[in-house]
C-alpha cells in the first residue's frame, strides 16, 4: 500500500481528524451550495419591521439590523472565509515551497540571500503592514485579501521546506538516485517534492484556520473584505451593537467562525499525525 | 512457608512472562511465556535477533513497559523471592536502579541531553539513599572514576553530547552501578560501539561485576560476546525462549535448529567458509506469529506437527532445554 494511502487510512481511523475533515467538507459544500440553499444574502425584505428578528421558520437564524437573513449571510460568509482561508493558505504555501526549494537546492550564496531575506521578513510586523495596506486599499476584493495575506505569510513555510530539502539532499536514496544518473530535475520531481508535500500540506491546513481568524480580525476592524459582502468578521461587527437585544446576529457568524477554525485545526492535526514520517511503519 | 530453611531462591526468577502490545494492526505478543532465572553473581546471556523481545523482557522485569504495552496476567517476576509485579508504585521504584539496574543500548539517547551527567548519576543515588546533594555529587564523581573516566571531577559537569560514544556508555554504567545493584540488566550495552571500544567496555563490565559481586543479564545479539562472557545462555526467538543451556554446551551441541542456524550463519574470523549457511526466510511480525512452532516456516527439519503444535521447552540434558519436537523425535532430523 502506498504511503499516501496508508496516511489516508491512519487519518480515517483518527476520530477527531475525521470529524474535522467531515466538517470541512460540509462547510465547503454548504459554501458552494449557498446560492442554491438560501436567499440573496443582500436582500432586505423589510429593513424597518424585519430587522433583528429572532430565529423563526422564515429566517432560521434570524435577521440582522438590515433585515437580511443571517443563515444566508453566514453561508455566503463561509464562501469568503473559505476562499480567503484556503486560497491564501495555498498561495502562501506555494510561495513558501518555491522559495524553500530554491534555497535548499541552490548554491550557498543564493541560499544565504534568500534565507536572510526570509529572516528579515519574519521580523516584519505583519499586522501593521496588513492594517496599513488594507486601510489604504480603496476596495479590498477577496482576491486582494488572499494575495496580501499570502504574500505576508509564506516565510515560515519556506524555512520548513528548505530544512527538509537540506536533510533530504543528504538522504541515501537521493545519493542512490544521483548514482543512477538521475538528473537534478528528476530528483526534485521524484524524490524531493513528494517528501516536502507532507509538511507543506500540514502547514497549509493549519494555516487556513489562522488566516480565517486573521481575516475576521481585519473585517472586524472594518478592513479586509468590505460590506455589504458578508464575511464573518463584518457580520460580528454588525451584531456587536445589538449583542444584548439580538445576540443571534453576532452569534451565528461567531460560532461558524470558531467551528470552521476548529475543523481546520482538527483536520490539520490529523494530517500531521497521519503524514508524520515517524508513524510511517 | 514452614519447615527448615528452604534452598535460597534464585536472585531473579521470571516465570511465564508475557507482554502484549495492542496496536492498530492487532495485538503483538512481544514476549510470550518467558521463563528465566539468574543466580547471584552469575552472568547469563540472552541472545536473539532484532525484534525477538529481548529489550521488552528486560523492561518488563522492572515494570517499565509503557502503554500500549502491558504485562499479561499470570506473569511473575521474583527478585530474591519477592514478586515485583505485585509491588506498589513506591516499592517498585525502590527496586529500580537500587536492586536492579538497567543499561541501555543507545548511550546517547539514554542520557538526558539537557542535564549534566554528574547530576544524572547523583540523582540516581538520591532517589534511593538519604544523602545530601554534595555527597551524592561526590559519589557520582567517584563512580565516574570507577568506570574509567579520566578527570572525572570536571567531566561530571559535561553534557552527554560532549562525550564520545565509549564515554557515554561508561557514564551509563556508572549511573546503573551507582547504588550497587544486585542485578544488572545490560541491554546490548556495546552494540552501538566499535569493536575496539566494545572490548574496552566489556572488560570494564567484567571487572566491575567481580568487584561488586553482582549478577548480570547480558542481552545481546552477538553470539561471540555470549561465548566469551557468559556462563549460561537463553536463546530467544519470536518472543519465546527457544533454548537454554550452559554456554559451552550450547556452542558445542545446539539442540534447536534455530540456534544451529545462527551458529552456521556467522562468518568467522578464525576460519574461512565458502558459503555461509543462511537461515531462509525472515522473522515474522510480532502481530502474526505462526501457528505451532514459531520457527517452523524457516526450519529445515519441520514436519506437520511443527505447524500445529507448539513444542514446550524440552529437556535435552540436565540444564539444557530446547523448544523443539526434535528433542523428542531426533530421528526426524534431516541430514
Amino acid at each position, binding site marked *: *500500500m*502506498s*504511503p499516501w494511502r*496508508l496516511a489516508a487510512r491512519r487519518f480515517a481511523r483518527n476520530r477527531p481528524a475525521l470529524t474535522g475533515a467531515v466538517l470541512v467538507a460540509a462547510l465547503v459544500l454548504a459554501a458552494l451550495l449557498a446560492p442554491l440553499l438560501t436567499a440573496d444574502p443582500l436582500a432586505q425584505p423589510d429593513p424597518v419591521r424585519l430587522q433583528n428578528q429572532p430565529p423563526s421558520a422564515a429566517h432560521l437564524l434570524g435577521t440582522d439590523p438590515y433585515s437580511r437573513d443571517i443563515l444566508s449571510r453566514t453561508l455566503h460568509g463561509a464562501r469568503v472565509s473559505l476562499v480567503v482561508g484556503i486560497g491564501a493558505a495555498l498561495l502562501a504555501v506555494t510561495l513558501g515551497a518555491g522559495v524553500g526549494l530554491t534555497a535548499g537546492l541552490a548554491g550557498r550564496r543564493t541560499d544565504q540571500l534568500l534565507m536572510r531575506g526570509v529572516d528579515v521578513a519574519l521580523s516584519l510586523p505583519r499586522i501593521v503592514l496588513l492594517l496599513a495596506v488594507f486601510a489604504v486599499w480603496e476596495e479590498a476584493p477577496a482576491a486582494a485579501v488572499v494575495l496580501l495575506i499570502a504574500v505576508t505569510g509564506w516565510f515560515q513555510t519556506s524555512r520548513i521546506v528548505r530544512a527538509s530539502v537540506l536533510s533530504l539532499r543528504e*538522504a*541515501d*536514496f537521493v*545519493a*542512490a*538516485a544521483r*548514482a*543512477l*544518473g*538521475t*538528473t537534478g530535475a*528528476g530528483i526534485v520531481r*521524484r524524490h524531493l517534492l*513528494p*517528501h516536502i508535500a507532507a509538511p507543506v500540506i500540514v502547514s497549509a491546513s493549519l494555516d487556513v484556520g489562522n488566516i480565517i481568524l486573521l481575516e475576521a480580525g481585519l473585517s472586524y476592524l472594518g478592513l479586509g473584505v468590505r460590506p455589504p459582502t458578508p464575511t464573518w468578521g463584518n457580520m460580528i461587527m454588525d451584531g456587536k451593537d445589538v449583542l444584548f437585544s439580538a445576540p443571534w446576529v453576532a452569534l451565528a457568524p461567531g460560532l461558524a467562525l470558531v467551528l470552521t477554525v476548529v475543523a481546520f485545526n482538527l483536520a490539520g492535526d490529523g494530517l500531521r499525525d497521519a503524514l508524520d*514520517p515517524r508513524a510511517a511503519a | 512457608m514452614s519447615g527448615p530453611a528452604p534452598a535460597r531462591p534464585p536472585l531473579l526468577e521470571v516465570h511465564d512472562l508475557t507482554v502484549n502490545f495492542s496496536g492498530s494492526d492487532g495485538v503483538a505478543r512481544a514476549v510470550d511465556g518467558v521463563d528465566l532465572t539468574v543466580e547471584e553473581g552469575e552472568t547469563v546471556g540472552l541472545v536473539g535477533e*532484532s525484534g525477538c523481545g529481548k529489550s521488552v523482557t528486560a523492561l518488563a522485569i522492572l515494570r517499565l513497559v509503557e502503554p500500549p504495552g502491558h504485562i499479561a496476567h499470570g506473569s511473575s517476576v521474583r527478585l530474591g523471592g519477592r514478586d515485583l509485579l505485585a509491588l506498589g508504585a513506591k516499592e517498585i521504584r525502590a527496586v529500580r536502579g537500587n536492586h536492579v539496574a538497567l543499561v541501555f543500548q543507545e548511550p546517547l539517547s539514554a542520557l538526558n541531553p539537557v542535564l549534566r551527567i554528574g547530576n544524572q548519576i547523583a540523582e540516581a543515588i538520591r532517589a534511593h539513599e538519604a544523602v545530601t546533594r554534595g555527597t551524592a555529587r561526590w559519589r557520582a564523581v567517584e563512580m565516574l572514576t570507577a568506570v574509567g573516566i579520566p578527570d572525572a571531577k570536571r567531566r561530571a559537569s559535561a553534557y552527554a553530547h560532549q562525550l564520545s*560514544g565509549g*564515554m557515554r556508555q561508561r557514564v551509563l554504567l556508572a549511573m546503573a552501578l551507582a547504588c550497587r545493584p544486585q542485578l544488572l540488566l545490560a541491554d546490548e550495552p556495546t552494540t552501538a560501539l*566499535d*569493536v*575496539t571500544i*566494545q*572490548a*574496552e567496555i566489556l*572488560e570494564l563490565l567484567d571487572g566491575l561485576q567481580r568487584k561488586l559481586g553482582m549478577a548480570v543479564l547480558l542481552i545481546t*545479539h*552477538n553470539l*561471540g*560476546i*555470549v*561465548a*566469551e*562472557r557468559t556462563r549460561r545462555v537463553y536463546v530467544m526467538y519470536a518472543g519465546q525462549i527457544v533454548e537454554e543451556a550452559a*554456554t*559451552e554446551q550450547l*556452542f558445542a551441541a545446539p539442540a534447536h535448529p534455530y540456534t544451529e*542456524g*545462527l*551458529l552456521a*550463519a*556467522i*562468518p*568467522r*574470523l*578464525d576460519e*574461512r*567458509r565458502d*558459503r*555461509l*549457511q*543462511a*537461515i*531462509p526466510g*525472515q*522473522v515474522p511480525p510480532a502481530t502474526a506469529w505462526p501457528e505451532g512452532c514459531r520457527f517452523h516456516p524457516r526450519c529445515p527439519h519441520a514436519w506437520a506437527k511443527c505447524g500445529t503444535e507448539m513444542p514446550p521447552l524440552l529437556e535435552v540434558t540436565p540444564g539444557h532445554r530446547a523448544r523443539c519436537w526434535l528433542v523428542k523425535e531426533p530421528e526426524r532430523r534431516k541430514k
Partner: protein
Amino acid sequence: MTATPLVEVRDLVTHFTHRVGLFGTRREVVQAVNGVSLDVAARETLGLVGESGCGKTTLGRTILRLVARTSGEVRFDGQDVFALDLAALRRMRRRMQIIFQDPDGSLNPRLSIGRAVREGIEVHRLARGAEADGRVEALLAEVGLPAGSAARYPHEFSGGQRQRACIARALAVEPEFIVCDEPVSALDVSVQAQVLNLLLDLQARRGLSYLFISHDLAVVRHVAPRVAVMYLGRIVEHGPSDGIYQRPLHPYTQALLTAVPVPDPKTKRARVVLAGDPPSPVNPPGGCPFHPRCQHPGKNESCRTVRPELRELAPGHQVACHLADR
C-alpha cells in the same frame, strides 16, 4: 592484478568544510579521507575495514563522485572520473553503482519497489514500457524477492528484503563495479548471511567488482580476498586477507582483530585492549595517526612526528607503521 585495474584511486583527499557554532561563526575542516590510494581489478572484491568515522563511506562516495574530492585522482577503466562532463558522468554512472548500509534510508519510502528499480532503466533508456516491466520483474526475482514485489512499498518489506531491493536497483543499470557500503551491517545474522550469499552469487554470475566496506572483519574476510584497513582517513594496512588475518602487521589491525569476540567458548585468546577513543578527523594527530592509542612497546618519538608511509613488507602486503618490521 595483472591487467590495468578497473578502478584506480590515487592520493585521494576529501575534506569537508562546514560552519559550526551557534550561527556558523567558525569554520571546521573534517579531514575525512586523507590521501588514499587503492586499486580494484575487474571481477575482484576489495574489502575495506575500519572503525566508525574513519572515512570509509566518504571514500566510497568520492570514488563515485557523489562527494566532491579535495585532491587526488580516481580513474575508472582508465578514465578520470573527475574530468568527465555531466553527460559523460551520467554515462559513467551506469557502470558504477553503490549500495548503502541503511536499507531504510536508501529507498524512497514514497516510491514502490518497482519504480525504484525502474528509475535507472528509465534514466539510461535501457528499456521502455512492458519491456522495462519485464526487466524489473526479472531483477527482483534475481535478488530473491517474491513475485508481486514491484507494486509494494519499502515499509512492507523486512530489512533484508529492502537490501535486496537496493541491490536490484543497483543492478538495473548493469554496472561493472559496485561500492557496497556496509550492506549487511544493519541486518540480523540470519539475514546477513542471505544477503552476503546473494552478493557473492551475483558477482560470480555477472562478473562484478566490489569495493566492500564493512566494520565487521569477519564479514570482510568472508567476501574479500584482499583487504585494506583504514584509520582516520588513511589506509594503514593493505594486502591479501589471509596474510592480514593471520599475520597482521599494524598494531591497529592487531587490536582490531583481537577485539572481535569469537563465537566459540573454547578459544581463549590474548587480547590487545586499546585505551581511549579514536581522535577526531577535525584535528588528526601528527605523525602516525594511530600513535595516541598505540600499545606497541616500541612506540617512539618518530611515531609522534613522522607520518609512516605504506611499505610493502610481504608480497602485496603493505603497512604504514614505523615499527612493523621490528
